[in-house]
């Protein structure tokens, strides 16, 4: 059987469900969203990621219809949304604050949107019961929001926004208040719901791990701009800029100047030291000779050894400054000659294995010529 890969963004015939076309949003003279164009496809689980204040919530609010773009156009299902008020959009939003109605019970909260549609009573009851079952809230149906726990409240908010079976569901930091275990459970619940219902999800999160777990694609934002849109794996393995590389996961950055050499580049990074070699450039980046560049290397791609390794393109000598023991992993902070710091991560496979390296040890760090990505510096 042929493995079906879900990647509608690669298919030129596919019509996006959501289109941002040159959208700008200003509050007074402050630009919250700066001329952004973005397509999101049906059945995607799309994650917006970025530091606080970069405009994630604003993007959601524009989609839901609570804010109008100052310039540009929003299309949902090919239809211009400018004149469509929030109550007529095929969109439901789960608010970061949950925004549960305090004067209504859990049951009434979930039924609220369905009642507005005026569907028959028995269908309404059946749908609410289904939502209660799905979110495991049946026991709390008669309680008011202030009589249930935070995690239960979050599930009520989710059930309420899911009840109308919207084409598009917007989740603004939906799991922010939950502990790690409940958060992971709910992530899987969300993915499950998404698989069952075929709803398109757009999720805002502060938590990059969450974005990596649930998303079909991730958009990394900064100051009102989308810096990169790609699958979680591509974002991690092939970041398009130092900003993205640094934002997602841990990374070593080495600054230098590039010189074309063979099938890649030599990067001069420190006075009187052998240049580093790399064969991978970031998306669409081809540095001219002498251009200043940044080499981005993930710590787990850096090996550490006592002797100079043979047959590896890049090997530099240094001294261990610090060791962070993280249970299953250890991170070594190595200071190279000349002051550059490099983090190298190794898996602790053997329990209580005697540490082969300790503080102040002289070691070699090394990586292959495809381990590092060459980015604009």
């Amino acid at each position, binding site marked *: 059987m042929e493995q079906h890969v879900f990647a509608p963004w690669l298919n030129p015939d596919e019509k996006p469900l959501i289109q941002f076309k040159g959208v700008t949003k200003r509050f007074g003279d402050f630009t919250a969203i700066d001329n952004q164009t973005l397509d999101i496809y049906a059945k995607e689980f799309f994650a917006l990621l970025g530091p606080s204040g970069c405009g994630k919530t604003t993007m959601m609010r524009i989609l*839901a*219809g*609570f804010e109008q773009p100052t310039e540009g156009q929003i299309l949902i299902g090919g239809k211009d949304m400018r004149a469509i*008020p*929030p*109550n007529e959009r095929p*969109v*439901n*939003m789960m*608010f970061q*604050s949950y*925004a*549960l*109605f*305090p*004067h209504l019970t859990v049951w009434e909260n979930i039924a*609220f*949107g369905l009642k*507005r*549609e005026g569907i028959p009573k028995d269908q309404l009851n059946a749908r609410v019961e289904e939502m209660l079952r799905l979110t495991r809230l049946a026991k709390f149906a008669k309680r008011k*929001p*202030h*009589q249930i*726990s*935070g*995690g239960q*409240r979050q599930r009520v908010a989710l059930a*309420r*926004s899911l009840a*109308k079976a919207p084409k598009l569901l917007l989740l603004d930091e939906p799991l922010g*208040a939950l502990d790690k275990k409940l958060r992971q459970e709910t992530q899987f619940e969300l993915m499950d719901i998404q698989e069952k219902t075929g709803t398109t999800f757009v999720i805002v999160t502060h938590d990059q791990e969450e974005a990596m777990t649930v998303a079909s694609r991730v958009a990394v934002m900064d100051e009102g701009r989308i810096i990169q849109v790609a699958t979680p794996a591509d974002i991690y393995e092939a970041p398009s800029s130092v900003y993205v590389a640094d934002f997602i996961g841990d990374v070593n950055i080495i600054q230098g100047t590039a010189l074309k050499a063979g099938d890649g580049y030599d990067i001069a990074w420190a006075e009187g030291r052998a240049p580093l070699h790399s064969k991978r450039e970031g998306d669409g980046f081809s540095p001219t000779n002498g251009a200043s560049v940044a080499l981005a290397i993930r710590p787990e791609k850096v090996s550490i050894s006592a002797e100079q390794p043979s047959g590896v393109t890049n090997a530099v000598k240094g001294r261990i400054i610090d060791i962070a023991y993280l249970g299953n992993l250890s991170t070594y902070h190595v200071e190279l000659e000349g002051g550059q710091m490099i983090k190298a991560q190794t898996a602790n496979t053997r329990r209580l294995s005697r540490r082969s390296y300790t503080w102040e040890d002289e070691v070699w760090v090394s990586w292959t010529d495809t381990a590092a990505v060459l980015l604009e510096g």
Partner: protein
Amino acid sequence: MRRMSWFNATSLTLGFVFLYLPMLILVIFSFNASKLVTIWAGFSTKWYGELMRNEAFLDAAWVTAKVAVASSTLATVLGTMAALVLVRAGRFPGRTLFSGMIYAPLVMPEVITGLSLLLLFIGIGLDRGVLTIVLAHTTFSMCYVSVVVSSRLVTFDDSLEEAALDLGCSRLEAFLLVTLPIIAPAVISGWLLAFTLSLDDLVIASFTAGPSATTLPIKVFSAVRLGVSPEINALSTIMITIVAVGVITASLVSKRAAVKRRNEEQAAGRA
């Protein structure tokens, strides 16, 4: 609990005596059997009986009740609408001016409010009667309603109304189904406040009342000028009771709502 020092106890007693002794005397003498106001001649409720047979007072009482209900209801609607605009509309040209103007009647001398309303009614040729008193009372009591309701709206979470819109409500439905039930305690205490204000207003009513309609306070005031009768004492006692019940209910309603809200917020905060 810490015991009060004698100084505090004395101050408290003096304060309350100063506030309530006159009223207490009035209430006591309303049960006086004698016609002479200042001489105690035994307990009797006959003046309450007399009062019930006094057509003029009963008429005035009926007018007062009608005016109070109508004006406080109207003031509640208008005051709530004004509060919504002031709290919600954000910045718009003239906002400061508008909010200043809403609250100005709170500090305006009543004589001036009354006089200007009188001039207005004469100017547009409106005969003075129940309608003019209702309009006049609405004018000044809606400011009080607006103060009470906007102080509640300031802490109202706008995302609740957005959530209602998101789930398919029109703006009006969102207000009626979500916002109004949540701010109801403030609206109710605004109504009660307006009601009691209307009930005991003398100055503005005397400017805007006409020969066809007199309110109770006006009636009492003019009757007293011909000498205090025990009947007036009885009437005043009844009014004190009504106003006291109104004020106490209003404060209980808003206090209970505040406590409930705090509990809910704490519950939310714990999550």
